[in-house]
Structure formats: C-alpha cells, structure tokens
C-alpha cells in the first residue's frame, strides 16, 4: 500500500477496494447469466426442436433416480389401498357378483354382435387399421410443476418408441410420447395444459376434445349436437380416432361435473399411479403419397340432365328463375364434357 500523499486524497484500503470490485464483478456476472438464460429461451422460441433433444437425453438420466425415489411412495399407496380393500371386502364381493351376472349376459350378446360386425365388414370389404404394440414399460409421474403433467416411461429409442406414439395404461389412455432417450421416454399426460385428445361420449356419440387443464382434471370441449340431450355426470369419454393418432375406443375419462362450462372430466388412468403402460404405434399413420392416375368418371351415376329437372320445377307451381336455366344448361354441358 503506498504511503498517503498530500496531493491525492487518502485512498480506500485495498481490502475495501477489493470488496467493492468483487461486488461489481458479481453484478456483472449475474447480468451475463441472466442474459444467457434469456438467449436460451429466445433460441427455443425460434427453434422449438432445440430443447427437445436435450430433454430426451435427460429422461435417460432421470429414469433410474425417479424409479428408486418413487418406490416408497408407491409402497405407501399400495398399503393404503390394501387396508381400504380389506375394510369393505364383503360389500365389494356382493356388488361384484351382481355385476358379474349382469356382465355375463352382456358378454354373450357382445359375442354375437362381434360376429355380426365381422361378417358385415367382410361383406363391405372394410379395412380396419390394426393397433400395433410397440413396447411395454413402467411409468412414473413427474407431477408437481404447475401446468406441466408429464411422466417418464422405461422404454425409449432402443425399444422402438418414437415421439407422438400413444401411451395406454391399464385403466385407459395415459397420454402420448413427446421426447425419447435411448432407454426412457417422456410422456405428456392427459391433464397437461397442452394435451388435446379427440374423444367422443360413449352414450351419445358426440365428439369433442378432452383438453388438459394443468391440474388434475380435463375440460371436455364439444359442439352442442342436440337440443334435448345433455352431458350427464358419469358419461364416459373414449377416444374417437379422429386425427389418426390415438386408436378409437380407448377409455379416456368420465364426466364428473356436467354443469361447468365446459364440462369437467376426470382421467380414468390415474396420472400418479400409471404403473405398467403400453406404447402403441400411431393408429393411422399419415399416408405415403404415391403418384396415381385419377379415377375415371362413372357415367351411370352422373347428375340427371335438364329435361328431367325442368318439368319438376314447373310442377312445383313456379316457373324456373331465369338465372337457373343457363346454370342448368352449363351443368349439363359440363357433364357432357366429363363424359
């Protein structure tokens, strides 16, 4: 430290100077860190694929940690379930017997119907796409971040799992694969705020979307299809097969609040206790376009021509509007040209 000079005012001690320098450096560094984080986000806004590869890789690393950590949680849930089961085993047994008798009658009916449907399909030459199992895996939910409902499953790229594939649990649809690692994959659950599943109401046949809310429930968004019927509590939602991703008929949820707008549904597959799941191939993969000649016109199914249409218009009591005549003539000419 230099001796105090008369010309210059006494300088601060080197210790204090170092401290303030450090603070300044710290602030600068914090600014750099914040700017870097912002840059990261902006890059992902420009290119959303950027983050997804990194996350796929971390799914691999996280899968073992989470499967170890969830063991005690799972154990406690099982014990709780077992105690509950024991307490009302008699009532449960009676109820199940009654249900079984009813179900057997219905199963016999269903067998008959199934045979009938098969015969009809054969008659029509209808081609039903088949569901194809890709892998089975164990799932664990990663659940406590607001808005995001995801799970990690223990099958990945090596097992043939790819993004977009539907994931189905024992009780119903679980979600779809969003990112894959080598031996693990991330699944977007039905309740994720970004999840949209095309569904239909089993009872009425109305179609709509089961939209995740980021909480524990889903919204059922649909267009009112009937003035007299309405959604009821207990209505079951199954996948409709629209969009070609999810196979049709997989249970999705059950309506628990019909008065809310849109109605609320609870997913049938409990997101926190998925257990074993199946990963299936997308039900209807997008068609591979090949060059083919357009189908030829079929003369015997052409639109009826003017001589048949004109008398009908006059019989109706009104002469045909002047504009309609040239239009009909043009249609006839068009039909002639296509022939």
């Amino acid at each position, binding site marked *: 430290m230099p001796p105090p000079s008369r010309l210059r005012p006494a300088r601060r001690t080197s210790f204090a100077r170092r401290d303030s320098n450090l603070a300044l450096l*710290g602030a600068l560094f914090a600014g750099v860190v*914040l700017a870097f984080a912002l840059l990261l*986000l902006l890059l992902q806004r420009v290119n959303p694929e950027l983050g997804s590869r990194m996350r796929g890789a*971390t799914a691999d690393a996280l899968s073992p940690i989470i499967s170890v950590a969830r063991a005690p949680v799972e154990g406690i849930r099982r014990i709780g379930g077992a105690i509950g089961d024991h307490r009302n085993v008699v009532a449960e047994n009676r109820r199940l017997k009654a249900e079984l008798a009813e179900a057997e009658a219905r199963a016999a009916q269903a067998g008959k119907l199934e045979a009938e449907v098969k015969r009809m399909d054969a008659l029509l030459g209808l081609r039903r796409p088949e569901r194809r199992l890709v892998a089975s895996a164990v799932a664990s939910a990663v*659940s406590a*971040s*607001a*808005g995001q409902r995801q799970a990690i499953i223990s099958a990945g790229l090596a097992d043939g799992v790819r993004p977009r594939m539907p994931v189905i649990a024992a009780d119903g649809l679980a979600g779809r694969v969003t990112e894959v690692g080598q031996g693990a994959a991330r699944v977007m659950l039905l309740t994720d*705020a970004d999840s949209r599943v095309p569904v239909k109401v089993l009872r009425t046949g109305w179609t709509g979307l089961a939209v995740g809310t980021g909480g524990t429930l889903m919204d059922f968004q649909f267009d009112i299809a009937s003035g007299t019927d309405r959604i009821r509590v207990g209505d079951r939602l199954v996948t409709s097969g629209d969009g070609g991703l999810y196979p049709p008929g997989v249970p999705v949820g059950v309506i628990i609040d019909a008065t809310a707008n849109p109605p609320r549904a609870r997913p049938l597959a409990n997101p926190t206790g998925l257990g074993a799941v199946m990963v299936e191939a997308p039900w209807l993969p997008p068609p591979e376009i090949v060059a083919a000649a357009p189908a030829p016109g079929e003369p015997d199914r052409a639109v009826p021509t003017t001589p048949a249409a004109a008398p009908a218009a006059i019989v109706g009591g009104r002469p045909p509007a002047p504009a309609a005549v040239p239009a009909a003539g043009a249609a006839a000419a068009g039909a002639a040209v296509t022939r």
Partner: protein
Amino acid sequence: MTDFPRRIGDRGETLRRMVPAGTVLLALLVMALPLPLAWGVMPHVALLFVMLWASIQPRLMPAWGAFLLGLFADLLFGGPIGIWALLFAATVVVIRLIEASTEGHALLFDWVMAGLVALAAHLLAWQLLRFLGSSAPAAPFLAQAALTALAYPPVAAMAARIQLRLAVSAD
C-alpha cells in the same frame, strides 16, 4: 471470513459450501416425485430455498449457482429449458437488491416479500411458457404461487436450522 483461504482445500469445508445447493436439489427431486396431491400442485420449495439462501448465505447461492440449479429444474420438469434457470437467477438478484435496501429481518416482512417474489416468478414462468408456444392456463401457476407463499414459514424454519448447524460445524 478471514479464514476462508486457509480452509479452502478442506474437504469438509467444500462439502459445507455445497449444502445450500444440495437442499435446492433435494427439494427439486421431492417435487418431481409422483405424490398423490390434492390439486396436483406442490409448493415450489426449491424456489423458497433459493430465496432463503440468497438472503442468509448470499455467498453460497450466487446467481450462476441459481442458474445451474434452475437448469436442472427445467430438465427435471420437462418444460422449455431456461425458464427456471432465468427465474432462479433473477430471484437471487432481486433478493440481493431487497437485502441491500432494507434492514433487519421481521418474519412478516420477509414472508410478504417472499410471497410477492413467488407470485411474480410464477406469473413470469406462465408468460414465458406461453411465449414459447404452450397454451397453459394461469390457474395452476397461481395455485402454486399461493401454496409457495403459504409454505414460507416452515421452509424458512428448516433453512434456519440448517444454517445453524452449518455455523456450528464451522467452529
């Protein structure tokens, strides 16, 4: 303070310095467990720990440390990468500013500040998610912010106990 250089190679000392980051890491892992929760939301305990350590042990929770922890959170939760990294680092900066401009630690004041910071962080997280193309509604974020604010006193007590043990083991 003055004996830092002497102890810097000490293994115990190095471990001791990792404790704040360790608590945040642990809190993140607990948050990622498949717990059967009522609304499917849990207080953001990790964010609370970041705030508390930035307040009582600023040297052990620098902005870049919070950034790395936030990066881990993003990877763990599976969202866009950088949201919590940005917010954790920003939280540290904001807490430093609050610390610099206020004196003393009244529980109520700290609690209100923590609540406000948590609310701002969750609203920002929500907006950033939307900015990155998600269509998440606000409700889960508000619920988590509220729960986080409610969870402040117990988490603060926990951090205080850890801090006490750190100080004792340092002697």
